[in-house]
């Protein structure tokens, strides 16, 4: 077991984890952050997307020990003081979710897309969301939601603020 210290949604945690524990399992099973979900076992679906130091990562593709000393934002940490994040609001306004299972990851990735490209074309939105699968919506309304959020200035998304240059274990994220 290895001890890690991670800030998740603004709260500092320190826990013993098995070295093989994935970040998503640490979030769900040890912290109860079940807003972040698992949709596949091959890093294809993106349902588990969170922000690590302000950049989107698939949390099934990061070991919990790699998050040691870093800052994680999940879907549960987006709304502030009861106010939805503009991307959450846009997903609601545009009916960009049906079953909602992909939604936490999709919202986290969509915020990342706008952080990189504040005024994206439809093509840039679509390519930016390529790693996140949705089976319900056909993506039409998700694209609309990201366009609405871009218009509302939904950048500077998650709380961490650091948007570049973070490294994990010496490897670029």
């Amino acid at each position, binding site marked *: 077991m290895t001890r890690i210290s991670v800030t998740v949604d603004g709260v500092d945690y320190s826990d013993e984890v*098995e070295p*093989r524990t994935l970040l998503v*399992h640490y979030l*769900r099973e040890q912290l*109860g*952050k*079940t*807003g*972040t*979900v*698992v*949709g*596949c*076992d*091959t890093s*294809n*679906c993106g*349902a588990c997307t969170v922000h690590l130091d302000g950049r989107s990562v698939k949390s099934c593709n990061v070991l919990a020990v790699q998050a040691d000393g870093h800052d994680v934002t*999940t*879907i*549960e940490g*987006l*709304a502030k003081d009861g106010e*939805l994040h503009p991307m*959450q609001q846009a*997903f*609601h*306004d545009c*009916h960009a*979710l*049906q*079953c*909602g*299972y*992909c*939604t*936490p990851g999709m*919202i986290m990735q969509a915020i990342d897309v706008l952080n990189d490209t504040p005024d994206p074309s*439809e093509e840039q*939105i*679509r*390519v*930016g*969301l*390529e*790693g*996140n*699968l*949705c*089976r*319900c*919506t*056909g*993506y*039409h*309304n*998700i*694209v609309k939601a990201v366009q609405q959020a871009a218009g509302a200035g939904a950048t500077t998304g998650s709380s961490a603020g650091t948007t570049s240059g973070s490294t994990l274990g010496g490897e670029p994220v």
Partner: protein
Amino acid sequence: MTAVEDRPKTEVGAARKRKEDQRLITGRTKWTDNIQLTGMQHLAMVRSPFAHARITGIDTAAAKKAPGVVAVLTGADIKDTQGAIANAWPITTDQKAPAHLPVAVDHVACAGEIVALVVARTAALARDAAELVEVDYDELPAVLDAKEAVEDAVLAHPDLGTNKSALWRLDSGEQGSGGDVDEEIAKARADGIVIEREYRQQRLIPAFMEPRSTVVDPTGEQITVWTSTQVPHILRFLIAATTGLPESKVRVIAPDVGGGFGGKLQTTAEEFATLAAARHVGKPVKYTETRSESLVSGHHGRDQYQTLTLAATKDGTVTALKVDLIANLGAYVGLVGGGVPVLGAWMFNAIYKFRAYRFTVQTVLTNTTWVDAYRGAGRPEATYAVERLMDELAVEVGVDPLEIREKNWIKHEEFPFTSVAGMTYDSGNYEAATARAKELFDYDGLRREQQERRASKDPVQLGIGVSTFTEMCGLAPSRVLGSLNYGAGGWEHASIRMLATGKVEVITGTSPHGQGHETAWSQIAADRLGVPFEDIEVLHGDTQISPRGLDTYGSRSLVVGGEAVVRAADKVVEKAKVVAAHLLEASIDDVEFSQGRFTVRGTDNGIGITEIATAQFTSHNLPDGVESGIDADATFDPDNFSFPHGTHLCAMEVDTETGQVTMRKYVSVDDVGQIINPLIVEGQVHGGVVQGIAQALWEEAVFDDQGTLVSGSFVDYTLPTAADTISLVTENTTSPSTTNTLGTKGVGEAGAIASTPAVVNALVDALRPLGINDLQMPCTPERVWKAIQSAGSNQAEATTGDAQPHFDAGAPNQDTPGDDAGASTDGAGQ
């Protein structure tokens, strides 16, 4: 919250944003895998790697000693308690169906079948220990393909003596709904047009985003089962029916469920295995599948061979349609099983006025993952076949594909119309939907562009695809289902509870998993009861809260379950009216109800329905002899299905040099009757259309020669991404249904039923000048390229060996046109 002054005049028809969203966008969703119970143990499955084998021994000793392991169970250990997986629809009385045990005892008939269970303190420890279970198998020959299965040379279940499960037939001559098919085809052969084709419906995987998960708590007086299902009520019934547990001791809850598309319309081996494990250890047990497990063990969809004969007169008037299907059921007959192709039986004739019709399906068993309902279930297969054939007929006659359809379709003034298959279509207006779709699509403009590209020999050709579909939905009339030997009814139930504080609970027997019933049912009840949308709570998916229901599938929830809400609300109003008359000191005949208030005709005297709810709570002043309470229940069982329809138009660009296909434009105009919430309808159409497009272009479940699922992960089973798809143009026309008072028709499956042939018709349309009249789905660039090559289109200007020297003939790792054993029906003339 909407301010009162902003409130729409009627909720029905308003684009209400969904009530469900708040928890889903903030991560407060209750998925089954989120449930944690004190003392809960975790289950991992040991699954067969072989498609067909006898189990000769299972050694669990090492696994039992592994850290954290509580129990290791084999099929033999739980054979008396594990229950069975049922088929609810034996399509013929002599249907052959192998016994289907949740955990195999001595024989496995497909890869992925469960052979042992490991219960441990954590999911990771359970999986670790599952690796230590040693199973000895005697491998048996496996039959995988449906056509081979018909030959009975290799048997999927040797004990049955045949792979043929059932032969089911509908003949218009025999049942008196039309003429003699053979006679009409003979006439057309002599002096008309006969089109004969074989189409392949590839195997698909529903691929809902939430992997299936089950938690069983055997502590307490009742066993509680939380599970990611579309059918909690059916599961409860079948647990009781097959395990011997009293139905009253079982509670099934479908909490938030992340998509289904038919894939969770099943009672699964995993659910029964989790139940057996929990009962064995006496503690709550959770099982959550991995995606790889999901893709191999959750049921698949489609997988049919379709042999089709369409007869017409020389001028293109259709006369007869003969349909012969071979449907692969996989290793076991699922809940709907052979009923899936049978649901297509009334739809191959579609919107066209055939004189004679015959549908025959042979269902077969193979050593592959079981096949059952997937979005559309039978109707996409039918629509694909007939819409492809109508394009072929248009070519034979030499007219536009829309012209041949219009010549043959049912005119709007002919409804209600009894089809050659014997179904009475309630309403529709194919002319209106088509006219609007053409306009939105710029049909004539795109046809002109197509001609220009053909004339200029543009390497990127343009094709236009048409699909004028109808479907039958709202799986319901209990009497009809009974006559088809279906094991359940088709009614739906609703209850309305008028709470003392003015809030309202609507309890529905439907079980949503993304459809938005909480929003739509609130809209219906708000109008009917005259209470605010926000004050209504819709409860569902728990057999203890909603004891009566038949769940969600077959585009039935609104047309059957929504109507039950209407009827329950009307009963509430009737009961409340008696109390209102009493409190208003008026004759009941003088009391009127409108927008939530009872008033006495000709006076200002009035009282709100929520005030009546409070009055019945206190019961201080009720009329003599009137029972306290204005809550009401209703069950609705319609007389008929409903028949949505629509016109879908698709423009595809095909790069004839590379086989790359690109969607240029997609327009749909769907007529789904009265719309309760246009936002939700639009979303259903978007999602359905893209699933249908995915069948046309990308998705296929592929097994290797040994019966191993090659496309067993999301790396290989290629769902569409945002980057693969385009924004769609969707609109509606409205022909209210006559089978329910709201006038609604189903919409959940319409898009998936309509879009597949529109896409393939567009591709074939682009390539037809090259002599191509078919492409096998999914129409990947490789298949399109090979079809182009084998059609000889590029022969005149063939690339020389010198130009691409490393493509020398005979060199390894090359695709050679026509040398693809796995895709033998590629290309022209098939």
